[in-house]
C-alpha cells in the first residue's frame, strides 16, 4: 500500500489490550481517509446505541493519505465518533505534529473502545503499542502534561492530551497537540476522559513515506509548496495570522458581535485585528509540520490583568469568540482566555458562544442570580470569564459551571424557558465566528446541512462565497454574491464534495485553495496510488458526504434537523447586511432536490446510493 500504511491500532481499554488491524484497500479508495474513513469504520464496527461517553463508544483518530508528506497544509488528522455535545455523528480536525509522527510510526489511525480501569496513556512507537498508568498526570493541565510527556518519552515524541475539562466530561472538551493545536469541536476530549485516557503519545525512529510515484509526487509537491508559500493569502496569514482580515470582515458583517445581535462595531475591528495582535503581543510565528504558511501565533502579554507568559496565541475564532461575541475589544483578554482554554482543554468556539448566550440570557432574565450562585454575567466582563467562568466550566463547579459546561443547546433545554431564542446553533453545535448574514447566505445552508452541526470547515462554502475558489473543471467558474441565495444550493453541492475530500485527506483549507482539481487527482494518485480520474475523486467526496448523513440518520436525525437558529438568519439590525433576508428554506429545498435527499428522512434515495456503490448501506437504511 502507498501513502497509507493500511494499518490501524485498535485498542480495547477494558482489557488494556491492543491489536494491529489492517483495512481493505477499497476502504481507502472509496472513503479516502481521515473523516471519511473514520465514518466507514464506525458504520461497520460502531455501536449506534452506545451513549457518547459510555465505554462502548468508539473514538477514532484517522490520518489522511498525505500525512507525513513534506508539503504545506497536509499535516492534519481527524478524530470522529458520536459527539457528547450533539449526541450524533461528528468529527474534528487538528493540525500540528501528530499526524506525520503516527504515519512514520507505521499507522493510519487509532481506534479506541472500552474504558481503562485506571488513568492511563497510550504509547505508540514504531509498531509497538503500550498502555501505561498515568495517575500522576490526572488532574494536571495540558501544558504541564505535555511537558511531562516530553520528558518521559523524549523530545521527538508527539502527544495528544486532554485537560481537566476532558477528565470532568465537559461536553465540549477538546484534545490538544503540543499545547497549541486543537481537535477543538464536538467534545472528543470528554470521550477520551470517559475512557480514562489522559494522552496518546507517538514516536517513530525515522520518517518513512512510501509513495506510489515518488518522482512525479516530488515534482508536484515542490510546485504546490512554492505556490502555497507565495500566495497572497499565505503571506497575509504568515504576517498577521488567521485574524489578518478581521477588520475587513467586520465591515462585511461577517464577524459576530454580542451573540450575533449586532453586525458592526468599528472600534472593535481595529482593536482585535491580526495586525494589532502582531504589533502588541506577537513574539514568534508558529507552524504545523512542514507548513510554509506559519499562520500560528506565539504571544506574550507582559503586563496588566490579562498578562500571560510567552506561549500559544489565539487564532481568529478564539479572538472573535472571546472578543466581539462577548462585547469586548480587549485583545489581551482574548490571549488570556485562549491560553486558559488550551490548558483546561476547552473548545474556544463553543465556550465563547455558550458564554455569549449566557450573557444574553442573563440580560433578558432567562438566567437569574439563583442559577449562577450570584455570579453576574455582563457583556465585556472578561475578568469574570477568565477568573471564574472558564475554570468553573472545566471543573463543573457551581451551578453556572455545570450549566454552561453543557454547551448552549443542552443548557437552554435544561432551563426549559425562552432562552432557546438566543441560541446560535445547528444540530446542537454552536456556529463558528462567521455570520451568514454578512459572510454569505450559502453559509446558512451549509451550516444547516453539515453532519456535525454549524461548521465553516465542513466544506469551503465560505471561501467560495468570498471568491477564493475557482474550479472550472467541475463547473465552479461563476462569481457568487455573498448576500444572496443565487446559485448557493448548486455551489453547496460542489462544496460538500470538496469539503469531504479536504477533511478526508486531512488537508488545511488555507493551504489547499492553491490546488486545482486536476492537481488534487494527481496528488492522490502519485502519493497513495488510488488510480483515480476526476469523477472518481468527486464521487468519493459525495460518498463520504452521504455516509455521514446515513450515520446521522441511524442516530435519529431527519430532514427537519437540517436547520439553523433563527438568530443566524433573521435580518441584521446594522452593518452591511442590515435588513437583508436570507431565503433559507428555498435554498434548502433546492439543495435537497440537487442532492437527491428525501425531504422527510434527509437521506439520499436508494438509486443515488447504488450509483456510488453504496448498495449495502442503501439496503440497510431503506429496508
Amino acid at each position, binding site marked *: 500500500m502507498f501513502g497509507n500504511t493500511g494499518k490501524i491500532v485498535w485498542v480495547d481499554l477494558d482489557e488494556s489490550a491492543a491489536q494491529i488491524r489492517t483495512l481493505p484497500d477499497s476502504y481507502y479508495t472509496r472513503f479516502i481517509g481521515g473523516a471519511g474513513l473514520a465514518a466507514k469504520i464506525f458504520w461497520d464496527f460502531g455501536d449506534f446505541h452506545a451513549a457518547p461517553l459510555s465505554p462502548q463508544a468508539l473514538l477514532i483518530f484517522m490520518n489522511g493519505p498525505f500525512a507525513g508528506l513534506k508539503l504545506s497544509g497536509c499535516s492534519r488528522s481527524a478524530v470522529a465518533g458520536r459527539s457528547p455535545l450533539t449526541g450524533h455523528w461528528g468529527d474534528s480536525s487538528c493540525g500540528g505534529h501528530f499526524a506525520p509522527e503516527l504515519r512514520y510510526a507505521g499507522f493510519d489511525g487509532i481506534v479506541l473502545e472500552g474504558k481503562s480501569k485506571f488513568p492511563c496513556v497510550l504509547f505508540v512507537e514504531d509498531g509497538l503499542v503500550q498502555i501505561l498508568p498515568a495517575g500522576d498526570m490526572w488532574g494536571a493541565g495540558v501544558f504541564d502534561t505535555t511537558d511531562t510527556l516530553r520528558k518521559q518519552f523524549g523530545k521527538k515524541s508527539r502527544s495528544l492530551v486532554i485537560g481537566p475539562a476532558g477528565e470532568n466530561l465537559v461536553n465540549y472538551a477538546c484534545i490538544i497537540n503540543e499545547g497549541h493545536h486543537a481537535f477543538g469541536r464536538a467534545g472528543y476530549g470528554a470521550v477520551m476522559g470517559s475512557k480514562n485516557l489522559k494522552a496518546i503519545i507517538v514516536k517513530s525512529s525515522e520518517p518513512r513515506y512510501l509513495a506510489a510515484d515518488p518522482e512525479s509526487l516530488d515534482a508536484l509537491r515542490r510546485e504546490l509548496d512554492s505556490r502555497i508559500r507565495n500566495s*497572497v493569502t499565505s*503571506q*497575509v496569514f504568515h504576517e*498577521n495570522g488567521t485574524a*489578518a482580515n478581521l*477588520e*475587513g470582515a467586520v465591515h462585511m458583517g461577517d464577524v459576530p458581535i454580542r451573540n450575533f445581535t449586532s453586525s458592526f462595531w468599528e472600534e472593535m475591528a481595529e482593536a482585535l485585528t491580526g495586525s494589532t495582535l502582531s504589533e502588541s503581543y506577537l513574539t514568534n510565528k508558529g507552524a504545523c509540520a512542514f507548513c510554509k504558511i506559519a499562520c500560528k501565533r506565539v504571544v506574550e502579554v507582559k503586563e496588566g490583568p490579562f498578562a500571560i507568559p510567552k506561549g500559544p496565541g489565539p487564532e481568529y475564532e478564539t479572538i472573535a469568540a472571546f472578543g466581539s461575541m462577548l462585547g469586548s475589544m480587549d485583545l489581551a483578554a482574548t490571549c488570556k482566555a485562549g491560553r486558559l482554554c488550551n490548558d483546561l482543554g476547552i473548545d474556544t468556539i463553543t465556550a465563547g458562544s455558550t458564554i455569549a448566550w449566557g450573557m444574553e440570557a442573563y440580560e433578558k432574565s432567562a438566567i437569574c442570580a439563583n442559577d449562577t450562585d450570584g455570579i453576574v454575567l455582563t457583556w465585556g466582563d472578561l475578568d469574570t470569564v477568565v477568573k471564574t467562568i472558564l475554570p468553573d466550566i472545566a471543573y463543573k463547579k457551581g451551578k453556572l459551571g455545570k450549566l454552561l459546561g453543557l454547551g448552549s443547546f443542552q443548557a437552554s433545554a435544561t432551563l426549559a424557558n425562552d432562552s432557546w431564542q438566543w441560541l446560535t446553533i445547528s444540530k446542537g453545535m454552536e456556529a463558528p465566528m462567521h455570520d451568514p448574514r454578512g459572510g454569505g447566505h450559502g453559509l446558512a445552508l451549509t451550516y444547516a446541512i453539515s453532519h456535525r452541526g454549524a461548521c465553516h470547515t465542513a466544506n469551503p462554502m465560505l471561501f467560495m462565497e*468570498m471568491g*477564493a*475558489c475557482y474550479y472550472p473543471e467541475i463547473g465552479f467558474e461563476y462569481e457568487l454574491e455573498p448576500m444572496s441565495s443565487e446559485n448557493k444550493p448548486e455551489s453547496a453541492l460542489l462544496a460538500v464534495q470538496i469539503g469531504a475530500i479536504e477533511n478526508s485527506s486531512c488537508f488545511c483549507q488555507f493551504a489547499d485553495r492553491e490546488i486545482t482539481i486536476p492537481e488534487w487527482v494527481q496528488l492522490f494518485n502519485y502519493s497513495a496510488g488510488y488510480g483515480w480520474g476526476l469523477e472518481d475523486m468527486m464521487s468519493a467526496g459525495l460518498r463520504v458526504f452521504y455516509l455521514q448523513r446515513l450515520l446521522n440518520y441511524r442516530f435519529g436525525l431527519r430532514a427537519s434537523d437540517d436547520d439553523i437558529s433563527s438568530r443566524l438568519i433573521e435580518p441584521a439590525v446594522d452593518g452591511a447586511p442590515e435588513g437583508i433576508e436570507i431565503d433559507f428554506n428555498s435554498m434548502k429545498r433546492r439543495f435537497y432536490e440537487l442532492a437527491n435527499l428525501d425531504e422527510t428522512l434527509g437521506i439520499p434515495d436508494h438509486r443515488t446510493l447504488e450509483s456510488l456503490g453504496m448498495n449495502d448501506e442503501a439496503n440497510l437504511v431503506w429496508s
Partner: protein
Amino acid sequence: MEYWKDQHEPIIAFLKLFDKAKQDQELFEGLKKVNQLIWFDYTEDGPDCSFYVDCRNGQVTSQQGKPSEEPDLVMSLSADDAHRSWSNKLNPVMAITRKKIRVKGSATGLLKLAPKLKKVALIYEQALNELNFSEKILK
C-alpha cells in the same frame, strides 16, 4: 481596452483619485496606515501605463510610472480591471484567485484599505466627473 482610449487616460484618472483621496481625512489616515510603497502596474496595456503610491513615513504621494526604489508591493492587472476595481465592481479576492490581479510582495497593508473601498469608489466617481470622464462611470 474597453474603457480607455489610450494608456494615458487611466493613469490620469487614477492619479486624480489619489489626489482627492489624500484630501479626505478618513482615507488619508487609512492610506498612511498602509505604510508601503506600492506600484500599480498596468503595463500590459502600454509601457507608460502604471503609477505608484508612496504611503511611507506618514506621507502619501503618487506619481506616474515605476518608482525608482524597490516597491513593497506590486499589483499587476489590466487598466480595465483597475477601473472596475476602483469603482468597487471587481471582487479583489476573486480577481486574485483567477489571476486577473497578480500580487508580488506583502498585501497586508492593503487590507487596511479594504473597509474603505466603498468610499474610494465614491471619490473615484467624483474624480471621473471632474475629468469629464463621466461616461466611464460604472453603474
